[in-house]
Every structure is written in C-alpha cells, then in structure tokens.
C-alpha cells in the first residue's frame, strides 16, 4: 500500500488533526512554488531524493481521482504510484484546473497532468543525455532513473532537477508513452484512501482542528427570504461560552464545542418576518411552461421538422422535479481570518473558482485568501459545502477566532442549492421500418446566468454583503436530441428567468432528464409500430462505439427480440437505453430487468447491466465503482426523489420526506468496460447515470404496459397509470 500521500504537510504548523497522520514533506521548496498551469513546475516537483509531488487542481470527492491522477503521472514518469505525493485543490499550490465538475477530472485534469509529466520526462532525458553523453533516443526514464535501454550508467531524477525545478513550459506536443507499454495505467490499483476510510482514520474537513477553534451553527430563517426582526441573546445563557453573532439577517451562535453550538442554536429565541416568496412544489410544472422567459434558443435544426411532423401525434411531456444533492454528511468548513489574510479548509469542488468570492466576502485581496481542499461527505455537484465555507469565513472574521461550521441534516436538505426542474416535450415520427423521420424536442429550463462566477451563497446574502446574483445550473440542455439518424430535427429551449429554488449543478446536469425523455420516447415510437427497441436503436446508430456498448449491455442480459409489452404478462419486464454523453464523450448502454407489483404499485429493479466505453481506461476498478454509483444514485433519484416545498420553505428535510435508496432496493449489477487505449480518456462519473431512468421506464412499460413520464416513479404514480389501462 502507499504512504499516506497527502496534502496535509501543507496544512500549516498550527494545524492539529485529531487523528494520526504521517506527514510526508512534499518535494521542492514549497514557498516558492508556482501554480501556473502553463509551467511544468505548476504540476510537478521532484525532490533531490527523487521523490515526486503532483499538484492537482481537481479533487477526489470519493470518485477515485486520487489513484487515477497518480497513475497517469506515474506512467509517464516510469515510477509506481506509491512514489507520488498528491496535493489536491489548494489555491496556493495547485494550478487552477477548473472545478471538479462535468466529469472532467481525468479527461481534462488528468490529461493536463499527464502532459506535464511527459514534458518532464522529455526534459529529464535531454538533461541526462548531455550528462551521459548518449543520444536521447537511447534513454528511458524508469524507476526514478534515466538509463540507457541497452544498460550502462544511469542518473536519478533527483540529480537532474535542481532547486529551481524544471523552469519549463508545459509542452502540449511532448510525446506520450505508447499504450502498448503501459505498466500502471489500465491496472485496477487500489485507491490509497480506502484503508483509512474503512478503519475510521481518514481525516475529513469535519475532523480538522485549530487551536482556539470555535464551533459555529447558523440559524437559517423559517422562510426563505425572511428578515430577522429580533434576537434574544439571553436565551442561550445556559450554554457556557456560547454567544450570538448577528450580521443583518445572518444569525449564528458560536461555542467551544459542537454540541454546545447545537444546543445554543436550538435554544436561541429569534423573531423573523413572514415570507412566502416560493411557489410550492405543486406549482412548478405549470410554472415552467408559463414563464417568464428571457430567451428562446434553437439548439439544433436540420431539414424541416415542423413539416415532417405535421401529421404526427401530439407531443408528450416528460418532467423531472427539483432534487437535492442529498449528501449524507453535513456540509462543513473551517476558516481562519486575521492579519489581513484568510485560510479556508473546505470540501469545495471549486477552490480556485471561489477564491475571489471569499476575498470579496472578507474584504481582502485575492492573493491573501487561500482555500484548501479537504475531504467532505461526497458531493455530486455543488451542495452546501461552499455555503458552509462562507458561514465559517463570516464567523471567523466576526469572532477573530478560527471557526468550524457543520450543517444540520435539515439545513442540508433544506438549503443546499438544488438540481433545477426540467420539462421536455417530445414529438416524433418513425417509419414502419424503424427509421426516425422527424423529431422535435422542446425544453423549458432555467437559464444559467452568463458570466456568473459562482452560485450565490446564503450567508453573504443574509448579511447584506454584495455578491453577483443569478442562477447556476450546469450545461442542462445537452443530449436533448436522439443519438440516432434522423431526417428532420429541431431542438428548442425556452429559457426561464428564474428557478423555483436556488439552483446549482447536480450530477450530469440536465442530461439525466433529457436522456430519460429522449430514450423513453424512442421506445414509445418503437412500441407504436411494434418494433424491438434494441434492434431499432442499432439500426439508427451511425457510430460503431455506440453499437458496441448497446450490443454488449443487451447480450449481458441475453436480449432476444420479442413483442413489447412482455407477452408473459407476469409483471416482469426489461428495458434498455443508450447515451453518447454530450454527443462527444463517453458511450454507455444500460439494460434493466424489473418487476412491477400491480397491487402495491411498487417497482423492483432486479438486475442492471451496463456497458461503458470512455476511451482509455485509467483504473478499471475505480471506474466500475463510479458506474455502480451512477446507477444506484440515479435509481434513487428516479424512483424516490422530489424536493417538496410550500410557499415559505423546503419541507422534505429527512429520510421520510426525502427518501433515498436503501439496501433492500439494490439490484444485481454487471458492468463491462470497453477499453480503447488508442482513444483519449473520458469521464466516468456522470455518463452512466443518464441512461438509467429511461432503461427503467422502458422496462416498466415492458412489464406493465404503462408509460411513466414523470419522476419520481412512486407507487401512487404507477397505480394511477395502471388504472388508465
């Protein structure tokens, strides 16, 4: 196993973690370290002893990046991953590689680091060639040494790189190793953080302590947008050491222990204004079609879809509700503010992106603010972590002490920024042979505000501090058209000015709903003609990688064409769905076997098969883990999840009101990876989520003859649909 490879050496000498760590010193002179992504030294340093430190702007949120990034760097450097210390998401030391979002960790973050390592190898070989008086072509970098391939004198990496590092621009053309020679990439190496996670010694931001640190708890208003009218500070005097911090409508307590802060927050008497500025979840669907709109955009147009569809049956609507990230643990952060500088330890997916935000919030210059990533409870898009960081920053500034803030479950589900709702109307025509003749997609979606640096945060809003306002939703309009050949096509989006609750990106933004609609409706067209949905898909595909994943997922289920719905009529069914993610990245097909209980309306997912092609596979085991997570989390979102709210507040704040999938519902799962070493590596954290709802809906149709177009697929919805048969 590896050393505990860690950024913890950087946490500062005053940092005390309550769990034991080994603290490897990263190589090189850390204080002078550049984080310029154009420089090799931004990503890589090599110590005199040949030790290697990799600086990664992307972070491991539980998805396995910690091993994948090491593998990509190690391969080019010709070393094992255990020789690499990895520093993640620290604005002082790691280059800005963009947020860890959009399934770009490996595809962009890793590829950039791989290129830096390849540039380094080229430089090391060049330097060694001069010293050894050999031609660079004769030399290779292996096991920390530059050595002639035919034997002879070698030089260690550490002897070739001086105090000042490489001082070399990253060369986008530096040759990469030939995949045929890979020793590290493509291996199912164990993730370095797993033993500590399994034995309770892995340190999270929640476990990070500073001397004199206070625990803060923010009291959110009883209604979104309520004003704080009155606070009775004496109401918490029973809690020793607890005190109130109030900045306009930002209300918090701080105390010496977390339990004391929780108790004080519970005791605090406050009076808030009434506020009823929400529409209530029951009104969302109609509101999406009603506007107000700020733009209408034709995303794709080919031929004349309107003319082609003139005789087609009317459009049908698919609806995806507001959903929560639902992170299991509370959002948490620790902040220290003082002496004209601030450091924030945070589980943020986007430390670099939030740096100017925190600088503005604290009234400091950007270069005086440092954000350091530490693990939190997994997040799947921007959950409450950045809000918790802002809470901690405000409290640290107000108290002059380091402050840790951890949210409550109610705040997590009530106040995390939400996945936005989506309404998608589809209309199409298919030939008797199964060719798509015409297709129209019309979407109603909240528009992301152009140029908005980040999701507006709760505490600056409450404290009356200026911050840019608007909506962040992610790229939610992608994959709204079928991946099959079609003669006439139009994809149009009506952009809404607002969203019912503060939105942010949530795993595979928008594309889960869009693929749900498109791949369900494709089955509707097949069923209208009586064609097998698998065969019809295969006929419409023009991309052989798509054909490969679809055939594989189907054959794993021993798919043989037969009429749909299932003639057996016993409530069992199967379904399949496919995506070419963003029409440019990963290929995935998911097939599913379900049983529908006509009496209870319950859907039981029995088995899931998935075939996945994301190009070059870096770590097949970590990739499979991500695919399993995509499948299970999306089953949960499809079967169970809708954020409910009244006109004042979110009302789904616990497991009974916002249930997520439990062990009873876990199906058997088989996953096959198609490795394509000649192709660039693409993401594995999102794509496999997108075909899940349609595979499920198609299987339910096969099982029971009902077409579910509204998520979640609750027993009530199933029973209502059965009654209409």
């Amino acid at each position, binding site marked *: *196993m590896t050393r505990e490879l860690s950024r913890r050496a950087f946490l500062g000498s005053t940092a005390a973690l*309550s*769990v034991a760590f080994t603290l490897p010193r990263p190589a090189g002179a850390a204080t002078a370290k550049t984080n310029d992504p154009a420089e090799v030294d931004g990503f890589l340093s090599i110590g005199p002893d040949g030790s290697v430190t990799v600086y990664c702007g992307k972070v491991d*949120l*539980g998805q396995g990046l910690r091993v994948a990034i090491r593998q990509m760097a190690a391969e080019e450097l010709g070393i094992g991953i255990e020789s690499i210390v990895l520093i993640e998401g620290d604005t002082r030391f790691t280059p800005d590689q963009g947020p860890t979002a959009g399934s770009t960790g490996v595809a962009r973050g890793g590829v950039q680091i791989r290129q830096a390592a390849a540039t380094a190898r080229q430089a090391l070989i060049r330097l060694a060639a001069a010293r050894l008086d050999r031609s660079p072509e004769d030399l290779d970098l292996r096991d920390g040494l530059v050595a002639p391939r035919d034997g002879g004198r070698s030089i260690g990496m550490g002897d070739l790189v001086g105090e000042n590092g490489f001082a070399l621009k990253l060369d986008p053309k530096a040759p990469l190793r030939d995949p045929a020679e890979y020793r590290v990439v493509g291996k199912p190496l*164990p*993730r370095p*953080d*797993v*033993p500590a*996670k*399994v*034995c*309770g*010694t892995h*340190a*999270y931001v*929640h*476990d990070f302590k500073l001397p004199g640190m206070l625990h803060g708890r923010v*009291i959110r208003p*009883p*209604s979104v947008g*309520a004003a704080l*009218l009155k606070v009775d500070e004496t109401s918490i005097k029973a809690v020793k050491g607890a005190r109130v911090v109030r900045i306009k409508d930002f209300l918090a307590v701080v105390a010496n222990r*977390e*339990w004391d802060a*929780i*108790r004080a927050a*519970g*005791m605090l*008497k*406050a*009076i*808030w*204004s*009434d506020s009823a500025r929400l529409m209530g979840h029951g009104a969302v669907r109609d509101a999406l079609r009603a506007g107000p709109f700020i733009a209408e955009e034709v995303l794709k147009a080919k031929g004349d879809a309107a003319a082609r569809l003139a005789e087609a049956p009317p459009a049908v609507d698919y609806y995806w509700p507001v959903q929560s990230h639902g*992170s*299991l*643990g509370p959002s948490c952060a620790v902040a220290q503010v003082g002496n004209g500088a601030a450091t924030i330890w945070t589980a943020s997916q986007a430390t670099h992106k939030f740096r100017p935000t925190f600088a503005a919030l604290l009234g400091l210059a950007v270069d005086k603010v440092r954000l350091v990533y530490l*693990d939190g*409870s*997994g997040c799947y898009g921007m959950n409450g972590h950045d809000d918790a960081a802002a809470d901690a920053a405000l409290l640290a500034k107000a108290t002059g002490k380091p402050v840790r803030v951890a949210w409550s*479950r109610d705040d997590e589900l009530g106040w995390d920024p939400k996945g936005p709702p989506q309404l998608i109307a589809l209309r199409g025509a298919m030939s008797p042979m199964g060719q798509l003749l015409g297709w129209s997609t019309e979407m109603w979606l909240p528009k992301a505000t152009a140029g908005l640096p980040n999701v507006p945060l709760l505490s600056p809003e409450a404290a009356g501090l200026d911050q840019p306002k608007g909506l962040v939703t992610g790229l939610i309009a992608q994959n709204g058209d079928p991946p099959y050949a079609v003669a006439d096509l139009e994809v149009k989006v009506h952009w809404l000015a607002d969203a019912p609750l503060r939105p942010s990106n949530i795993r595979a933004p928008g594309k889960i709903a869009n693929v749900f609609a498109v791949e369900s409706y494709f089955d509707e067209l097949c069923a209208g003609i009586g064609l097998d949905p698998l065969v019809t898909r295969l006929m419409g595909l023009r991309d052989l990688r798509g054909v490969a994943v679809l055939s594989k997922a189907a054959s794993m289920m021993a798919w043989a064409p037969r009429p749909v719905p299932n003639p057996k009529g016993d409530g069992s069914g199967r379904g399949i769905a496919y995506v070419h993610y963003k029409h440019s990245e990963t290929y995935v097909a998911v097939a599913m076997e379900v049983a529908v209980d006509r009496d209870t309306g319950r859907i039981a997912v029995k088995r899931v098969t998935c075939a996945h092609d994301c190009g070059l596979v870096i770590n097949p085991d*970590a990739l499979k*883990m991500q695919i*399993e*997570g*995509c499948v*299970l989390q999306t089953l*949960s979102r499809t079967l169970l999840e809708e954020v409910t709210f009244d006109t004042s507040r979110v009302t789904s704040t*616990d*497991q*009974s009101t916002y249930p*997520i*999938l*439990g*062990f*009873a519902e*876990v199906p058997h*799962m088989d996953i096959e990876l198609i490795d394509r070493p000649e192709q660039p590596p693409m993401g594995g954290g999102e794509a496999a989520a997108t075909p899940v709802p349609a595979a499920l809906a198609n299987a339910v149709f096969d099982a029971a003859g009902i077409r579910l177009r509204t998520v979640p697929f609750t027993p009530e919805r199933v029973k209502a649909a059965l009654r209409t048969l």
Partner: protein
Amino acid sequence: MAALGKPPIWPYTADPTKREAPMSGKPASPGKPVSKAKAPALLSLTVNGAPRHAAAADGDMPLVFWLRDELGLTGTHLGCGKGECGSCTVLIDGEPARSCQTTLAAAAGKAVTTIEGLGTPQAPHPLQAAFIAEQTAQCGWCTAGMVVEGAALLARNAQPGRDEAKAALEGHLCRCGSHHRVLRAVLRAGGREPS
C-alpha cells in the same frame, strides 16, 4: 411576524414515530438524561477496551459528539443526527447502536466499541479487510457505520447470505452508491463468493 417555531434542540427529542421507522428497530434506547441532583460527578464507560470518564453534566450529550470531540475518535461520523442514516453506528455491549441517538448517560456503565476499536489499516478486522479487498468506500462517509453494523452481523451469523446482509444493513444509507460493494464485502468476510 412569525416566531421561529421552537425547534427541538436535538432531533432525538422530535416526534418519536418519525424516527422509529428507518432505524429498523436497532438503535439503542436514547435513555433519559440523568437528573443532575442524583448524578455522580463523572460518568464512566469503556471505549475500545479502555476506561473513560465524562462529566456528568454532559449526560444528555449524544455519544457521537463526545467520541469525536473529547476522545478524538473521529472515525464515527455524524450524518443525519436523526437516527436515519447509520453513519454514527457504534457497538454498545456488542450491539449496534446509533451514537447520535444514545446519550452519554445512557451509555454509562457500558462498553462502547467504535470503528477504531475494530481494527486498523495495519491489523484490520476481517470485515475491514474485506471492505478493503472490495475497495468499498467512495467518499467513505457511511462506511464506518456499515463496517460496525456488518461486524455485529458476522458475530451473530458467521456466513450471512446476500439477503441477510441486506436486511442487517437496511437503515444504513449511502448517497454515493457503494451498496453493491458493501454487500460483496460482507459475503467475502463470511467466506462466501461475493455476488
């Protein structure tokens, strides 16, 4: 004007009907806070085999905070604080209990085993070894609670099947979707072929 409807100080004082269901009948009794007058100055309990003492004044503190903040045993995670997720599971006298629902007073006189008490990366419990072999954790927030619950299952049933493992772990939530590997790990630890 609306007075903030007084929230319960801690969810275990909330509507008990709401919290029973997802806990699958396994939480330790929350217990009654000890009356200050009769309470001894110190509460004594055993944690991972070592005798420990807590201030009696903290009798109503849920065990999870004391383990984490006073003893530095941060392997026990606070998830929901409502008895709904299982992240905070520890063993009390060998039985799985939710440490967010168990007060220090209720744990007094008992033996508490946390995830750290089961094993270490160097000398893991057989179930921890199986979790490592199956590379089970994603973010790892839920993992310790599942390991503790699974260890208790293995203590009662050396070779649990997949359905028995599912039943034992019902009431443990994972948002990352590590369930499949958790089940494999439990089967593996029992010497069965993971499926």
